[in-house]
């Protein structure tokens, strides 16, 4: 009972986060420019509307006039921004109907669904692998506490914590892709010159995709494991001094079993809590990596959309980003609630 009500409560809270986030985006993109430029968002056909002005730019070409009227009608541009267009916008989001891309003339959802696996490949890797690696390093540091390995781990994890992933990616491209190829003639990593194809499932192409993504994975791992390692080390060290661990040691339980049976269950909830708060950063980081490497995920696609002012795609990108974030947070919340009974009883954070 406690669990269910907690989950429902968090679900409602996160859903309202999503709702506000999406509404805010509409206000920033559409209402604020109109209001700041002296228009009235409550009246139809405001020329300051960025979507209108983007469409009007192509109106100079007489071939497009019919198309523009058609598009404007389809997007509902001839209605007042508030409330009509806002309501249409929200309704479309809830039925996941993003319309057609103005640029490619394909259904946005189709375009995004093609690219979603590629984004998820980066995002899920970025969430899971650094976490596991950080945990293992933290355990290693705990084992050799105060020794040389511990110092090394602390230093490297701090360095890794400082460096952002995209800076590391540039360094990898320079020192591990360009330099070995030019000076020694060895090809280790690829430079992002030819983006892998989306639809080819041959073995060769899959190998190329993996090779192409390897610098991205490496930079993610190197950049994000450090924060976790440092955090885990502090957490495990402070936990290892608690009385129950001392008792377990006194009973003669081997160290590995103490770690597995006694310490790990106690540090799980703070780990997942902190994961929940790291998720926005991981998401932003994987977006930048996608755009830098022309990795054909939704971020790169929508980066093109931003450059072309492809409004429907921009909206879909924002909505899906928010959705990914909110869903990840919800999963983290539910996991915490399952693992740590105190959270349910205490009623939130």
């Amino acid at each position, binding site marked *: 009972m406690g669990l269910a009500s907690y989950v429902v409560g968090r679900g409602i809270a996160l859903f309202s986060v999503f709702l506000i986030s999406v509404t805010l*985006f509409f206000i920033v993109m559409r209402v604020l420019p109109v209001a700041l430029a002296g228009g009235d968002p409550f009246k139809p056909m405001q020329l300051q509307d960025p979507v209108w002005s983007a469409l009007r730019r192509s109106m100079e070409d007489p071939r497009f006039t019919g198309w523009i009227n058609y598009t404007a009608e389809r997007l509902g541009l001839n209605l007042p921004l508030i409330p009509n267009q806002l309501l249409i916008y929200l309704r479309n989001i809830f039925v996941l109907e993003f319309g057609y891309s103005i640029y490619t003339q394909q259904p946005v959802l189709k375009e995004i669904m093609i690219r979603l696996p590629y984004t998820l490949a980066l995002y899920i890797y970025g969430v899971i692998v650094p976490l596991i690696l950080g945990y293992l390093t933290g355990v290693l540091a705990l084992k050799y506490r105060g020794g040389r390995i511990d110092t090394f781990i602390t230093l490297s994890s701090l*360095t890794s914590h400082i460096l952002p992933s995209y800076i590391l990616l*540039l360094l990898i491209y320079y020192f591990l892709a360009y330099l070995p190829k030019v000076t020694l003639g060895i090809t280790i990593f690829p430079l992002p010159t030819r983006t892998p194809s989306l639809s080819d499932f041959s073995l060769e192409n899959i190998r190329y995709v993996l090779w192409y993504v390897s610098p991205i994975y490496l930079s993610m791992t190197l950049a994000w494991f450090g924060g976790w390692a440092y955090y885990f080390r502090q957490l495990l060290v402070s936990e290892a001094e608690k009385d129950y661990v001392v008792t377990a040691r006194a009973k003669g339980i081997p160290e590995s079993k103490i770690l597995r049976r006694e310490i790990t269950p106690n540090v799980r909830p703070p780990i997942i809590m902190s994961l929940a708060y790291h998720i926005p950063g991981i998401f932003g980081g994987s977006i930048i990596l996608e755009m830098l490497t022309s990795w054909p995920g939704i971020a790169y696609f929508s980066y093109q959309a931003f450059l072309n002012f492809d409004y429907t795609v921009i909206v879909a990108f924002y909505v899906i980003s928010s959705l990914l974030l909110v869903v990840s947070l919800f999963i983290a919340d539910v996991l915490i609630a399952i693992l740590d009974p105190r959270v349910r009883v205490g009623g939130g954070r």
Partner: protein
Amino acid sequence: MSVKLRSFVSRFRTSSMILNALVRDKRGLTGLLILIFYALLGGVGPYFLPYDPILSQNLADANAMPEWLASPDIPRTMNISLDNWTVTQVSKEGDVNINITNQGRIVIIKIWGKGAANISLLTNDYLYYTYQPARSMRVSSVYSVVPIDPVNNTILNVDKTDGWYSISYYLYNQDLYGKNTTVVTGGVNYTLPMGLYIFYSDPGFRMGYINPFINEAAVNRSVDKRLPDYILNIKQPTPIPEAVNSVRELLLAKDTRLKAGVNISYYCDPMSFLMKCEGKSGVMIIIRRVHITIYGLAFGLLGTNDLGSDVFTQFVYGARTAIIFGFSVAIAIVIMGLFVGVFAGYNVGKLSDYITTFITDVIYFLPTLPLILAAGIVFGRSIVVIYLVIVLLSWPGTARVIRSWTMALKSELYVEAAQALGAGTGRILIKHIIPQLVPYMVYAVVVGVPGAVFTEVAVQLLGFGDPTWPSWGRILNEAYYRGAISGGVWWWILPPIFGIVTLALGFALMGLALDEIANPRLRRRM
């Protein structure tokens, strides 16, 4: 905890405590020194640098390497004005009068009459070239053509009965002229004559054709060429294949002398139906000095980028941007966090606290980057927009911590005592709560600066940064997208990375040193 905290707080005075922690701790001192270094570099450096980071271009060749790395043979940028003309050849045919006034720097040549003439000038000055051949150069000059009445020696208006003239400028390498070189392009050997290159030729104009719509007396024409020019290559007396770099292969060699020359020809044939030349009016041609810039392949402390801008200048300006932007963002975030956090923490348990906390949570989970991009396309790519979006989206983290601190401080005995003595909310906040938060606020500023710098770099890397502001992110963006990696131009792409990383490292070290003051609960356990 509360006892510990109180005793801790009473032991220190805030301001000296922060400074002490920074200076006593080895890490803090290192971080502080890095900060001071970049603050001095960015604050003072721009006043000593002669170049503008964005507008000063073509200071050297594209991607010129750092000067301290280059051997003495690698070409440096050379600037020279060649004047002191001598007339090397005058030849005429028919009834042509030539009057040359050689003033050294300026040569005034008057030609009139019916017939043909050819005059060659060469500079006495020369550029003594002491390096390996450079890749490119720029030559510029200005000359004037004036229609004159030779009898009364007055300036005339342009008419259509004057003679035709043609002017060509050339570069002449005294020590290479007459030699041949073999160049291989595309698997074909070409034997080409060295030492002479025509970089400008005014193709047989008549005065009235220069500007038929404006009846101007004098026409100033400017010559400005960046060599090698592959279209000029094929117009040479001996055509040079397009792919040959004429400057490197034909014009420059170590320890040779480079001069500039002008060739003027005049033609007036009254019998020609096409020309209708009457030979009454003449042409006065004024030749001025020729300016030569040879673009070096080594320049400055950190070389140049693909446009020949000084990377070191950009680096220094980038340091200034990073410090100013980082601090202003971090301070604004902390101030907003303070207001919201203290408000929520002091009203803990009330409805206003719930609402504030909810808003904080919502903003914390907004996707920052897409919003920055959206604001960028809607409001323009300006640093102010980026600043506002970062500040408005990043304060919740600080606000959350300050809220929990305020909650803890509110239940302290001395706050209760102050309340019991009848102190107002404002007095309690200002006298008892906020002073206790100062160490954390300083810590939050120090920790927040690298984040702000990184966000700016990320936005710049995506191409949504302010195009008018020099910053490390902008250098990175240009370097990454204009082929610094595939061209091996490490002096272009590595300095901004170095700057970003060391600055972040400095702030992280300072953060570590301040950590124990700001978060007494998290004292280091070994």
